[in-house]
């Protein structure tokens, strides 16, 4: 099986995105009941970090940012 650089980048993006997403949402789950302003800000940040990881997975899988070839390319 031949893997070019772009394929490796896609695999790393998907695998890394899954790891980061799981860690982010697990941290959010652990922190869910913690009170206080800073912990609530952390919850928002962790949720958005998880969303970012999902976006990276979708980009790596070619679901997002998969544009048709440009003219003349």
């Amino acid at each position: 099986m031949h893997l070019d650089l772009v394929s490796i980048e896609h695999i790393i993006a998907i695998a890394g995105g899954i790891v980061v997403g799981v860690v982010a949402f697990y941290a959010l789950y652990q922190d869910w009941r913690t009170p206080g302003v800073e912990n609530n800000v952390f919850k928002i940040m962790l949720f958005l970090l998880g969303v970012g990881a999902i976006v990276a997975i979708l980009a790596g899988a070619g679901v997002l940012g998969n544009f048709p070839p440009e003219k003349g390319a």
Partner: protein
Amino acid sequence: MAVASPSVPVAEHHDEEVDQLYAETRDLRLQGFLLFLVSDCVLFSSFIFAYLYMRNTGQSWPPPGIHRLDVAFAAVNSVVLFGSGATMHYALENFKHGNFHKYGILMVATILLGAGFLGGQAYEYTNLIVNEHVTWSGSGIFGASFFTLTGMHGFHVFVGVCMLTILLLQSVAGVYTKQKFFGITAGTLYWHFVDVIWVLLFTIFYLI
């Protein structure tokens, strides 16, 4: 200034004063830092909305003669930055629970991942400028907006890497304790903020 009572050693009394001051001002510091993040958010928002407005007034995007940005490489670079957000979060958690060794390892990992992201961005810039001939001033709205926004974000990451390095050195020097660690909390908030801004920039520059 209060005078120490004869029965309490001066150094101990001073520590108590510092602890009391810390407890009294911690919420104010937090509010001040959150206001700083909000102001930074406004700064990025204004540039992002200007970019989106200009982009939607043009007929085609990217402009003729400019190729689309490399999504796969940017996705890997994004994962590197998001990963650093995760390590930073657990670095703070470990510090809170007194696991200073794990905290140190996770802080080093965060700094390395942040530096890795900057390296990736430098590679991407070099590729764009040398191979694609896209420049800040010579490629119209696309070049100006791309380099301004990602450069501004990269500068924030650079500042964050420097700040985390200083925090780590301060931690080693014993500046922060299990009871007093607002600096590390602020560093974590800042680093999460930098991550979240990149989610937006990655989406608007590479995915739509």
